């Protein structure tokens, strides 16, 4: 982020030297705005998709009514903003029996985890005014993948805290379920991600994308790690659904069983933070999936120009914008897949969930690691070096 | 078997219990309260009766002095039904429980206790079933009155 941001400001102002903290502050603001707006859109989309699958319409009457006459996809655009503002305006109840500190800490904690996880996610790259293409991320960490996996685990802490502090048996059960579930799905998930790591020889998410763009065995179409590490992709996707507590793995907040699980006692703003974090995390796993298995912001055989000159109109940073468009299109495709799964499947039982995780997904991720290692060795021996 | 076929068998097996046909219900037998658990145990276990199914048990209030318990038994094996009726004194109705013979007698008896005030001796858990625990009176008795009970104008 830093070099591009500096470059951008310099382009705009003609050589203004920005203070060192400005990029951080700006990226924080951008990420916050992105989380809020994106989560609102996703919730709207989720309700529309759910309506489509269930032969309903979903929200239609909120927002400009004339739009709703056009088609179901143009109705109810203001639904989630209204929901959010309403939640902010609602009375904030802290029940008398709760552990006040933990009760208030948990939503903040889960939101912090949701925020911090955005740091290494690469959404595009640009060559504009740079000696070599630069990956656009808040910070393209060398251990990006490890960082992401580590930070998402913080969610357990928040949910456990919420469950414990609520002093409600349903909350406690929900919190415990979440703890067990996230812990046991963390392991196959990490092993599933190790396949691409071995193939790319790097832990940086930006590198992972660049390696995929270069292709495997010299063939660009083999490049997306979805192909060599297909098992890994499947295992990761399942684990990702489980990690974000989405149905069919929504044991911690199973409505029919535990009322609202760990968030049973939460009202208004605090509940909104849980809700926001949940959708933000869902999008994050989709973004990771896109970066690790779907080639990120790249398309095979397509390199966008650094700037677009249409004669009358000069568009700088075109490669950055095109990359972002590709990246978000891919991420939303994964989001749609998750939504489809959510509204079709019944819920698993906690013990089946454990069995499935430990006895099926874990061996599968080992197998994937084996396949990837062999492929990486073949690449190294016959094509020289890592694919990148 | 119909009640008049049951009558001689039951009379010979249980000489100390009184049985008689019921003029109102052709499928019913009236009996005295003294033989309740034994007669029912026999009806359930004897191969010629084989009443494995207790359809329901309930009570009918006949003021001023009589409260009638009704048990309806059905046999899937022989496809016959027997309704047994027991008269109890209305002021202090007590009768042995059948909860050890049929599981669903448990709740049926709790309901009768709740709504009619019949006391079932030996019942494992005789509490009110329908009404709140602190409710007073037994609503299905004919002379029941309660501030919340507005009688229907005729």
């Amino acid at each position, binding site marked *: 982020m830093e070099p591009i941001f500096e470059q951008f400001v310099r382009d705009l102002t003609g050589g203004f030297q920005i203070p060192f903290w400005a990029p951080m502050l700006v990226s924080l603001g951008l990420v916050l705005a992105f989380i809020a707006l994106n989560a609102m859109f996703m919730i709207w989309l989720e309700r529309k998709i759910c309506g489509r699958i269930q032969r309903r319409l979903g929200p239609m009457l909120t927002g400009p009514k004339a739009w709703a006459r056009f088609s179901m996809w143009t109705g109810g655009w203001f639904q989630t903003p209204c929901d959010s503002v309403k939640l902010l305006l609602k009375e904030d109840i802290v029940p008398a029996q709760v552990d006040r500190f933990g009760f208030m800490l948990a939503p903040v904690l889960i939101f912090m985890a949701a925020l911090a996880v955005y740091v290494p996610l690469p959404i595009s790259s640009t060559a504009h005014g740079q000696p070599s293409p630069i990956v656009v991320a808040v910070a393209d960490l060398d251990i990006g993948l490890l960082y992401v996996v580590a930070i998402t685990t913080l969610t357990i802490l928040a949910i456990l805290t919420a469950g414990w502090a609520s002093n409600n048996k349903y909350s406690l059960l929900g919190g415990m379920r979440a703890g067990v579930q996230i812990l046991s799905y963390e392991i196959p998930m990490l092993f599933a991600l190790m396949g691409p790591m071995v193939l790319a020889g790097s832990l940086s998410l930006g590198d992972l994308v660049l390696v995929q763009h270069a292709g495997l065995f010299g063939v660009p179409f083999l490049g997306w790690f979805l192909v060599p590490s297909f098992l890994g992709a499947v295992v990761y996707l399942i684990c990702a659904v489980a990690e974000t507590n989405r149905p069919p793995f929504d044991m911690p907040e199973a409505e029919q069983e535990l009322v609202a699980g760990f968030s049973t006692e939460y*009202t208004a703003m605090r509940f909104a933070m849980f809700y926001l974090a949940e959708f933000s995390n869902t999008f994050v796993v989709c973004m990771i999936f896109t970066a690790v298995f779907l080639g990120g912001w790249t398309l095979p055989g397509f390199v966008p120009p650094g700037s677009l000159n249409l004669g009358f109109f000069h568009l700088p940073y075109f490669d950055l914008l095109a990359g972002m468009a590709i990246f978000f299109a891919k991420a939303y495709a994964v989001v749609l897949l998750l939504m489809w799964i959510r509204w079709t499947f019944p819920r698993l039982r906690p013990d089946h969930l454990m069995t499935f995780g430990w006895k099926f997904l874990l061996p599968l991720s080992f197998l994937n690691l084996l396949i990837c290692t062999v492929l990486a060795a073949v690449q190294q021996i016959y094509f020289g070096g890592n694919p990148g | 078997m119909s009640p008049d076929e049951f009558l001689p068998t039951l009379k010979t097996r249980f000489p100390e219990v009184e049985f008689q046909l019921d003029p109102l219900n052709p499928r019913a037998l009236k009996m005295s309260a003294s033989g309740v658990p034994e007669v029912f145990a026999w009806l359930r276990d004897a191969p010629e009766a084989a009443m494995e199914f207790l359809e329901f048990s309930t009570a009918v209030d006949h003021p001023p002095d009589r409260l009638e318990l009704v048990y309806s038994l059905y046999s899937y094996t022989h496809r016959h039904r027997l309704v047994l009726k027991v008269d109890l004194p209305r002021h202090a109705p007590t009768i042995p429980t059948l909860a050890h013979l049929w599981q669903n007698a448990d709740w049926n008896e709790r309901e009768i206790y709740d709504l009619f005030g019949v006391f079932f001796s030996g019942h494992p858990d005789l509490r009110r079933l329908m009404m709140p625990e602190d409710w007073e009176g037994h609503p299905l008795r004919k002379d029941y009155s309660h501030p919340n009970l507005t009688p229907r104008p005729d």
Partner: protein
Amino acid sequence: MGLMDRIPAYVDRLPGGSVVMAPVDWAINEVQASSMWYMLFGLACCAIELMATGAARYDFDRLGMIFRATPRQSDLMIVAGTLTLKMAPRVKLLHEQMAEPRYVIAMGGCTTYGGPFYHDGYSVLKGVDKIIPVDVFIAGCPPRPEALLNGCLAMQEKIRRNKLGQPRGPAIHIPPTAGRFSIPSGSPPSERDPQIPG
């Protein structure tokens, strides 16, 4: 309910405060009316019609209404079905657990005045407004889903008439006949008699 109620007291002290309050009221009411999350909770026959209204043909979600399983997160309690004396304390408790602003729709005859169980119903509470304040009464046994949707629209209309820091208007009665609800206007709430049918 804390901050929300104190806003008018602060704003009115400012010069031209009441002018500011009108759009604020409008925005708050519009937001609340568009997002009534109802509590997933049914008592008797009306609950089946409530479920049918949530399903594909009628679709509550069009109005932005989704269910929440816990009272803490719901704005609207649709009391659907006969309320017995045994259940009444629970419903009161649930209403107390809901966060302000909270609204109540009494669906069907039983919740309005006891319904068919008014006579001889020794165990039935005759009117849910005896224990919790009700905003909209819907007649019918059970009301059709259309009537329920009509009631929800009336609820929205009522929310739109809210003014911060002022008491809520009188209850609205949705008649069993077809047609859109009408909200009585003119006389202030105190002068109007509560219309309890039956």
